[in-house]
């Protein structure tokens, strides 16, 4: 598929309740052909529910969905031949081997025997799983399971791919490989809809990102545009000996051109101009506080996310830790 920037996924005023709980609240967005679009938000934000509705695994309460020019609002199965889905859990058949799983998934899309076997072998090779091809899926490691699940999602060469938290809970090396595969698919022209709660992952991979919190989209823009407000800022982080963190209230009036605040055990200095650290170190030393480390901090999408959504960075970090090593880039 040759990208032409026309939207292949159009969602308008999508709303979904589960009983009393409002899971998705009147969201609208579109994804252009060949784009890698990120859906970024904490757990429970409505990312998976949105994917489930778009792929036909859940019904919408109200709104409109158009995928690949097909109105899926009333018939969610209408566009299923155009999409590939990699769910947030590796859900292949434990009793089948890796090769059998891929062949079976290809058969679900009507691919003939010779073609599906060739394609399965190719994908096993691409995902470095050839040696495990004849082993049962139940015996795969988490990273291998994840890779095979992605392979199963693209076995029918879908022009649109939904990736739901693809690197959650897998080791760093596998996560890197999964990101590389995602980037390659994007380069090959596949439209990718990626949900993640790893901010760095979204920043590195996606062209445009929607921030979703509590079922609502707070902001949608290109990564470049999202980063713009923080890119002109100069930030330093000072690690200080005990007691130093209480000094932010004294530092702010003493150095009015800078903004001081406590940031996870460090003093964060923010300024529109480069930070001159020497007078600050002197100021602290005169009060018996030792500066143990000073480093420049490059503002990232995480700062934008925190600024826009009001969600604490700590919360997202905790989720990362809970999910495992996949977030380490």
């Amino acid at each position, binding site marked *: 598929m040759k990208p032409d920037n026309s939207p292949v996924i159009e969602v308008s005023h999508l709303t979904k309740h589960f009983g009393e709980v409002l899971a998705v609240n009147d969201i609208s967005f579109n994804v252009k052909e060949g784009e890698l679009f990120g859906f970024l938000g904490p757990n429970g934000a409505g990312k998976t529910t949105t994917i489930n509705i778009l792929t036909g695994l859940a019904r919408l309460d109200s709104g409109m969905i158009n995928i690949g020019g097909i109105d899926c609002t009333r018939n969610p199965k209408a566009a299923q031949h155009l999409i590939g889905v990699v769910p947030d859990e590796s*859900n292949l*058949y434990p009793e089948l081997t890796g090769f059998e799983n891929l062949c*079976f998934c290809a058969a679900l*899309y009507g691919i003939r025997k010779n073609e599906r076997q060739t394609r399965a072998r190719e994908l096993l090779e691409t995902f470095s799983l050839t040696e495990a091809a004849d082993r049962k899926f139940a015996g795969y490691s988490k990273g291998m399971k994840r890779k095979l699940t992605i392979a199963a999602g693209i076995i029918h060469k879908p022009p649109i791919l939904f990736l739901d938290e693809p690197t959650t809970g897998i080791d760093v090396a596998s996560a890197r490989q999964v990101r590389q595969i995602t980037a390659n698919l994007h380069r090959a022209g596949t439209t990718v809809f990626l949900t993640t709660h790893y901010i760095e992952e979204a920043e590195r991979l996606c062209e445009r990102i929607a921030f979703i919190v509590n079922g609502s989209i707070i902001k949608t823009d290109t990564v470049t545009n999202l980063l713009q407000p923080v890119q002109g800022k100069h930030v330093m982080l000072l690690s200080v000996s005990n007691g130093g963190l209480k000094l932010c209230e004294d530092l702010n009036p003493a150095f009015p051109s800078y903004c001081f605040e406590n940031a996870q055990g460090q003093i964060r200095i923010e300024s529109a101009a480069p930070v001159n650290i020497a007078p600050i170190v002197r100021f602290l030393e005169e009060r018996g506080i030792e500066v143990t480390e000073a480093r420049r901090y490059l503002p990232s999408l995480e700062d934008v996310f925190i600024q826009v959504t009001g969600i604490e960075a700590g919360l997202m970090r905790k989720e990362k830790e809970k999910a495992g090593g996949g977030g380490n880039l």
Partner: protein
Amino acid sequence: MTRWIAFWNILVKDMRAYYLKPPNISWGIIFPLAWTGMFFIRTGSGLESVLTLLPGVMTISVLFGTTSMLAVTITFEKRSRSFERLLLAPISLELLMLAKTSGAILFGVVNAFVPVVIAAFLTDLSGITWTLVVPAILLIGIVSTFLGLFIAVSVSEIFEAQTFSNFFRFPMIFLCGLFFPITALPVFLLPLSYILPVTYGVDILHGAVNGEHILSFALDFLILGAFCIGLFLLSLRNIKRKWIL
């Protein structure tokens, strides 16, 4: 063609992954043998009773084979979320569920003929009207499978599927005329017999094997067919309502 590739592969996958496993094959052989043996010992009758017992043993083999396997396998796939793969496939829900149930139907039908093969060594089966037996077994297989599907859609845990299917199956052994005619039941239980689909299948089998039946074959087939369609549509409705939230 695309749809039939999917249909065939779902059927083959289920047969290989679930139905053609050694425990199920041994179940298919041991279960009818155990029932037949139990009746011989209990009644003290000889080989001349084989034909009397055959319709009941065939039915029970189909009933237990289909309901237990389908309810458990679908619940298992639903819990492990592998069933989502099937729901994401570009085939209609009707075709998907027919593919999922075909394996169980085939398994049930094959199970039903295990006692027939055993009986062939023990007695003369030439008097049996096979043109009635074969479609009756097929319809009992279909209706039992759809009953299993109905159970699978109604529960979320495997143990619930087993409990719920027993809730239907064991009363059916006594209420559907498998081993004694429903006319021998107390009057107040007769309505229960007539609302259970297996009653009509067993009536055909008794007629085809022993020449004793209560309703006309046409009516039996008609009601059995209606139960098949009704249970399938009801299950589809429940799947759309409960699984595609």
